[in-house]
């Protein structure tokens, strides 16, 4: 045989690969074979669907719109863009215990945080605390890169510039007395954002790092004074700032404002009347947006979402129906060798 190989240098290798004879699994998609699969998937889906739906039904959500475009809205007065430092109060009541931990979101609609030019208008180098970017911000930040006096803006760019600075105070009305509900502002941002992606410059005090820089045009206070109450919550690692900088995917969005986890309210908001004091300072008329606050508790699957459960139920049912159809088809058109 060795000689034979020598004599035929052109002879192709007779291997399973070159001769395309590799052992192969050849699945046949025909009715008879897929029926069990359909039944299994259908049943599993129905199971998941039911579980999801039950979980979702147990989640309580309270949405309160306070845009104030309507005459009877308590914030009607404040919705005028000319109004400065307007405060309005929203009254609402809870009929049964709102189980904790309660998440307190603020919502905006028709606000396109995903607008491309808006989205790229930020400087991750600055936000990482790199001082060289403080002097020469990233050019995508235009026109929020330098102020009129050619001082670099820190943090530069549109995203930071447009931050919605909210101040909400929640009171439970107990016997006519307002009892403030403590709001927990820690840990509302992503852990990685707070610890890794965003950093303050290693300059103490922090304000020295911002020498010869300008605050963003729309900001009332510079970055190092974002939270006067907590010195550690300033600069780029301010929790509200972090939440805002993580741009929303869709134009109608909500962002986490606070959590209610402390004191008397650790188990949730008890039934009763509440009042929400809103510092109304972000006009939305220019984009016909709406503003709201949302109270919600969460489960293992996150916020309330009925859709997923319904979808699983529907598809599961569909699969079961399909398997019945397949059965009929199989009975009528089976292949001889499937017997």
């Amino acid at each position, binding site marked *: 045989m060795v000689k034979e190989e020598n*004599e035929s*240098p*052109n*002879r*192709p290798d007779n291997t399973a690969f*070159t001769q395309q004879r*590799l*052992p*192969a*699994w*050849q699945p*046949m998609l*025909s*009715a008879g074979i*897929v029926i069990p699969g359909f039944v299994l998937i259908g049943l599993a889906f129905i199971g998941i669907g039911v579980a999801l739906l039950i979980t979702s039904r147990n989640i309580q959500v309270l949405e309160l719109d306070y845009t104030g475009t309507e005459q009877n809205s308590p914030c009607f007065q404040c919705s005028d863009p000319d109004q400065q430092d307007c405060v309005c109060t929203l009254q609402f009541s809870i009929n049964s215990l709102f189980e904790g931990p309660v998440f307190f*979101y603020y919502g905006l609609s028709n*606000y*396109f*945080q*995903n*607008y*491309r030019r*808006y*989205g790229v*208008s930020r400087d*991750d180098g600055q936000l*990482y605390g790199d001082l060289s970017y403080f002097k020469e911000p990233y050019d995508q930040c*235009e*026109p929020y890169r330098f102020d009129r006096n050619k001082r670099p803006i820190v943090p530069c760019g549109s995203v930071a*510039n*447009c931050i919605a600075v909210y101040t909400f105070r929640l009171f439970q009305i107990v016997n006519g007395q307002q009892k403030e509900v403590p709001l927990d502002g820690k840990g509302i941002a*992503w852990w*990685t954002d707070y610890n*890794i992606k965003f950093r303050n410059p290693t300059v103490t005090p922090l304000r020295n790092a911002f020498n010869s820089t300008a605050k963003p045009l729309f900001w009332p206070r510079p970055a190092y004074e974002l939270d006067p109450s907590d010195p550690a919550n300033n600069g780029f690692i301010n929790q509200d700032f972090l939440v805002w900088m*993580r741009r*929303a*995917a*869709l*134009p109608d*969005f*909500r962002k986490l404002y606070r959590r209610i986890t402390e004191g008397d309210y650790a188990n949730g908001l008890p039934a009763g009347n509440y009042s929400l004091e809103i510092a109304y300072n972000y006009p939305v*008329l*220019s*984009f016909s947006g709406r503003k709201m606050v949302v109270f919600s508790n969460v489960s293992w*699957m996150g*916020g309330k*979402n009925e*859709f997923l459960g319904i*979808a*699983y139920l529907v*598809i599961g049912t*569909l699969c079961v129906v*399909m398997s019945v159809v*397949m059965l009929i*088809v*199989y009975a*009528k*058109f*089976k292949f001889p*060798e499937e017997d």
Partner: protein
Amino acid sequence: VTELIRDARHSMWKHVCGFSHCVRAQQPANGKKGSLLRIRRRESSSMAWWNPLALIRDALTGQRVRENDLRHLVSNLPYEGLGKKKQPNRYLPGNAIKTTKYTLLLFLPLNLFEQFHRLANIYFVGLAILNFVPVVNAFEPEVALIPICVILSLTALKDAWEDFRRYQLDKKLNSMPCFIYSRKDKQFGERRWKDVQVGDFVKVLSNEIVPADLLLLHTSDRKGMCHIETSNLDGETNLKERKVVPGICEPNFEPESFNSVVVCERPNNNLNHFKCYVEKPNTEKVGAGIESLLLRGCTVRNTDHAIGFVVYAGHETKSMLNNNGPRYKRSKLERKLNVDVIFCVILLLAMCLVGALGHFFWRQALPGVPPYLVPDSNGHVVSPSLSSFYMFFSMIILLQVLIPISLYVSIELVKIGQIFFITHDIDLYDEETDSRIQCKALNITEDLGQIEYIFSDKTGTLTENKMVFRRCSVMGTEYPHKENGKSYKRITEEGRPTDSLPGNHVNSANSLSHIAVSNFSKVIDRTNSSAQETEVIPDRKLLRRVSVAESTSISSQKMDPHFDFFLALAICNTVVVSMGTAQRRRVSVLFTVIKAGSLRNIFAPKRDRTFSDTSFKEDDRFNPFPQVDDSGVFPSHSQRDESSGLCYEAESPDEAALVYAAKAYGFILLSRTPDSVTVRMPSGRVLVFEVLDILTFDSNRKRMSVLVRHPITKECVLYTKGADYSIMELLGAPGNQKNVVADTQYHLDCYAKEGLRTLCFTKKVHGEEYEQKRACFVAKAAIDGREQLIMDTAVQLETKLTLLGATGIEDRLQESVPDTILTLREAGIKVWVLTGDKPETAVNIGYACRLLEDEDLVINMSCKNKVRSHLTSNISLVIDGRTLAMLLSKDLQGRFVELAKRCRSVLCCRVTPLQKSGVVKLIREKLRVMTLAVGDGANDVNMIQAADIGIGISGQEGMQAVMASDFAISRFKHLKKLLLVHGHWCYTRLANMIIYFFYKNLANVNLLFWYQFYCGFTATTMLDYWLLIFFNLFYTSAPPIMFGIMDKDVSAEVLLGVPELYRTGQGAGEYSFCTFWVSMLDAFYQSLICFFIPYLVYQDLDVDVFTFGMPLNAVSLITILLHLSIEIKAWTVVHWIIMLGSFAVSLILTLLYTSCVTCNSYWTLQNQLTDPIFYLICIITTVVALLPRYTFHVMRNSINPSPIVQGRHLDRLDTSTKEAWIKEWRGYRGGGEVKRSKLSTPPSPSTPRTPTSPDFLGNEITLNCLNWGCPNPFDRIRTF
């Protein structure tokens, strides 16, 4: 001298003033006198000035010299050592070759320039540039450059590597050693190939390769002959003779005394044609043609050395001019694909328009300027209309993947893979010639799966083209050679001769050859069948008759016709006798060894006379010729077995068969030189015939003649052989020949009906032929109209011939040809046979190879339009050449095509090469079908090039067909697997791959599009751009390529067993308008699902852009991969590895990428992976997205399974059941077992004439056919 100077000045002046045509030394009419002088004069004049003007003029002169129709070349030797400016041939290129495209310095610009010829690259660059325009960019500009850079640099790398390989090869060739004569050294000195110049004298030793095109002036052979092997050039391995230009350098060659001018034509790429004459100082002209030209690349054989004058060098040599790059054909699928790409472009523009309009309306609807609207650097907000105009271009950048540029790259890769598998198929490998299938056109593999018409040559394609002498008729008497038939029958009954015969040979061979045999048993196996086929067992009656004839003719000085007949067989040809010298191919040496043994075995009665019992001595082979001089007749003084070392090298197998037949009767052709032929008589006497002239074969005359001086009678005898119809009309006065002619014609008809190739042999004794011979010589000298003059000479000589007899040569059908044709026909392919043979032969072969069936209605379309009718619906058409010519005319074309469309098979006879291509073109254009042409000879080249796919069969006929073809196979039967299996696979694989690619791109890109509805149509991506690049580059690129190379819908056994499955690819096939749009709609649907299920889940939650994008990405990836898994028909290990690998790679790469801190999507996937919602989304979205397709497949497979699906069901059965089923199916369909070839049972000679034969053979038609210039089998005898 003054006149000379004046002349020079005159021409000078004309040069300067732009009269560029002043020097007319090249005109042959004027050049009679002193052209050499004139050339020299011009040289001197051009030397006189040394200024820029002179340089320009010099360049112009060079240009003109190169482009002149005639070139005047003189020896370089008188100018040796002079400066370059003084060299006479300095305008002509040297022998150094450079085939590289680039130089080191200019590689980058040239390569980029080359690459930007591709439209796809321009598209890419356009997008990249668009991205640099700040107002429209959709991605970071630098990042957008990555794809184009990757593609350009990969291609550049490949080009550079190829160019480097070419450079190395050039360097190797240029530095090969050769011998150039040097005046200084007075001898040939060793130099390099690149040093060779036009006008040099080059010496080539035996077995060396010729460095440039040389005009042969001198050889070591006393008679001025030189043998060359042209296998490097055209693959033909038989030796060819070249002879020196007569009368130039005799008797002793002195390069320095060569003072003639060689006038030759401009270089061209015709390997078989060369026109030249040598003008001696005394103005005598000697013509020379291709028979005196040694081509670059040939190998000198059997000759100690040859000296030639370089006429063309380097890139002007014929071999270099023939060196074309690979053929580029565009396949049908690719043409359709391009249409669909245009649909994609329209779709892209539509989507961009939607985006732009959407953006406009979104902006219009805004009541004010919202804070998120970023103004430009001046603080102004761009107006909605301008912004939406910009957005249109941004959208193009965003959705660019919709145009599947990567598809083109993938298709190339897939085709490389497909070709790998085709060339590695062991079933398409031929043991005998040790050759695989060659794929010359790299991009039409899938066309093999769509063939509707096959046009096949007959000889050498359907038949083996290994000619066997079968029967002959001498002077009107038929000698049926029954033993011959029997031996053949025995062989066929025993199966293939190679199986049973080697043993016999080994046993009978003597000790020495025994050793040889055992050493090279493999070679013998391979050569044995051909050895067997050349054997002719003489007819006893004829043998007796011949021995009587010889004795009478020698004694009485009067030639017996039988004697003449065999002399004609032995002499009237251009067969080269080669000694089985060691340096020749080993195969032929062994071939002769075996023959010696087997001859002794079979020719038992003749042993004592022809073959001696002396041991086979090795030196016999090297010196087989008896020492003879030119004086004529010899008594036999050599009793040694000289014939054993003989090896006949014929350009046409017919000729070899005839020579072997003559040998069987004892007329052994011993040697051939241009001037003489040596033949040994049965009695052992050796006759040397002086050859006065050879009128070579040409397709107009259809005959060839040899004019010899007979050594016994000293007469000039003209032996002519040729096609019967071309001979019969040239016969002399009927007289006593009348009966002979009639009987011979009858025998010829019988032979033709048996499917034998017929030839007639005639003789003519010329009394005083010197004048005509002289005329012929003069004719050859004239460079123009030479063919015409030879023709005229031939017409004068070949008249009043005396008929000697006729031969019937069998051309056996190749192995399993009938089965192949039957299978192809069952596969829905119409097989047409276009042959140059006569109708009877062709019809017979047609029946034998099952092209025509007994129950067919065969319409014979000849001049008389006789229709033979049986009661059947299968119509077959037989057309002869003349009728075909009429049918191809404009007004009949339409009706012919209509008729041919209804016919199951068509057989065209006596077709010229041009008509062959005409038929192919007509059918291809009128019916718009895929055509395939298969042939093996030079006469099929036209047809091969005209068809969509040209297939060459590398056989006995040289390589012209193979060179022109897209695929080269070695046997006709390989066509079956090539088409039915590889064609089908390649087509379905590629079609499905392309459809999948379109789907994939659309499904992926549409996610971005749907997102635009939720971001104000601002070209935002919810995924990092890098991840988008990864998606196409790493995640989803390998699976479709693997799918295109390796998927197997039905196994090869089933495809071969059920040829009907081939029909699925014909016509539109799987890649149709419908399938394309269905998959596009599916892509739309799936992208909708993949976008909106996650959207609905996340719509009220606090989700950020990239967290939202991550499940979309994952879902899209899973859906796209699972979609492919539904399409994959057979999962091998490779499939699993690639599919799972792609998934793993995508997971790992995305995880790695999202670990980069400065990236937008930092930690998003890691976050998502901890969220159960992510998994729940992935599961439900994938299921919903794929449910319709899956269900559709299941339902269609169950309710209305396609033939392919049924084939796959068949595949799942175990082997024995499968075989039984296929057998049953074939039986049911009526295919049955293949009938025995009709040729294997020799019919009795008394076959009654059927009514059809007179229709074809009537004189009227014969004449007509001549007028119409029909070819005959002799077409294949070409003059090299």
